[in-house]
């Protein structure tokens, strides 16, 4: 396979010595099957061991290696350098998060929000294990399968212009996961969760830009999930106004 050199313009930020971010250029040999993460590892292993980024599975499932490449949030393990336009490849940390160092961001904010939507089955009564599994048909699995694919890679938050201005917005992934549990036929926590997401820190800020669904590497379609949640939350709200007695069921 033929090799050629490509310039990588990489965001650097060293919290203990830098006042602000800078860019550093590296020339990296590229083959047809080199992905952006390979290039970063080449830099780390042979050119500059101080370059800092997260990665692990390099098969698009662990969600560690999300970065903004040429301005677009991607999993760097899944983007071939040959498919990128322009001579220089710019690598930034994901947008909308505090930067810890170089390409590493902090997203404890998401972890709090995830916990907030109660991402686990809620049952009025747990059946004993001896009773066996809860029955669920393949169609019932299909109802929430798409939203159950979220790998928490945070690309959607990086792409979301609403999150970038309103950090109390629940955001795409956490909403999609809430929807995943609401649509699960085994779950009985829909009312609780809809109450949670129908707050100031919930979903109402979303203007359906839709970019979260465009960048999602697992086709979770959080944008659609949020719209569906809005419909469900509005219906629940109307029900509570019209039938205050039955609303607390």
């Amino acid at each position, binding site marked *: 396979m033929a090799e050629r050199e490509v310039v990588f313009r990489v965001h650097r930020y060293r919290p203990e010595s830098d006042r602000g971010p800078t860019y550093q250029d590296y020339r990296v040999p590229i083959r047809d099957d080199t992905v952006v993460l390979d290039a970063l590892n080449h830099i780390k292993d042979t050119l500059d061991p101080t370059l800092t980024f997260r990665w692990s599975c390099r098969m698009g499932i662990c969600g560690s290696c999300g970065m903004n490449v040429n301005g677009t949030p991607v999993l760097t393990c899944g983007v071939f350098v040959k498919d990128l336009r322009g001579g220089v490849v710019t690598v930034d940390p994901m947008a*909308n998060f*505090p930067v810890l160092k170089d390409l590493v961001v902090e997203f*404890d*904010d998401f*972890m*709090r929000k995830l*916990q*907030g939507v*109660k991402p686990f089955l809620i049952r009025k009564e747990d059946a004993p294990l001896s009773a066996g599994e809860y029955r669920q048909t393949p169609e019932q699995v299909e109802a929430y399968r798409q939203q159950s694919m979220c790998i928490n890679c945070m690309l959607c938050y990086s792409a979301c*212009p*609403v999150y970038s*201005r*309103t*950090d109390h917005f629940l955001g795409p992934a956490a909403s999609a996961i809430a929807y995943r549990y609401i649509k699960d036929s085994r779950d009985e926590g829909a009312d*609780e969760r809809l*109450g*949670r997401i*129908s*707050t*100031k*820190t*919930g979903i*109402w*800020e979303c*203007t359906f830009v839709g970019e979260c669904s465009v960048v999602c590497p697992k086709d979770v379609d959080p944008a659609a999930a949020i719209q569906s949640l*809005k*419909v469900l*939350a*509005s219906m*629940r*709200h*109307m029900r509570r106004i019209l039938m205050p007695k039955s609303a607390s069921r």
Partner: protein
Amino acid sequence: MGVPREPWNPGHEIVRLEAVAKEAEREVVLEPMVWGLFSLGGFITAFLLPVTIFFLSLAVPLGLWPAERIGYGAFAARFPDLLVRLFFLVVIGGGLFHGMHRLRHILLDAGLTRADTLWAVLCYGVAVFGTLAAVYYTFLEPTFGWSLPFL
């Protein structure tokens, strides 16, 4: 954004469920309603407004229709029809609630987030006032003695 790091506190990432539950108690009242109206308005404007603009404002100058089709006489002939009046009410109300909700979010998107309450009052105020005015002109305006058929 950019919350300064707390002093080292193991487990500080964990939000206690009670705290989350407390937060969840404060459900918003306005948002589901205005969003519902925005949504409904979106359907109304998408399906009904293009043909309305075309008929009332573009077809005549383009020479597709004679001017009298939108003249006073034609309008006065159609307007007593309940369906026509309802149509105008729905298009005006839907357009206002839809468009004003979007205007509010455009203002927020432009970075004017601090004045959100002001924008909300202004935008939804215009929508409510405009819709009430539409009710007045379609059903209550006395000049021609229009009234609700059952009044």
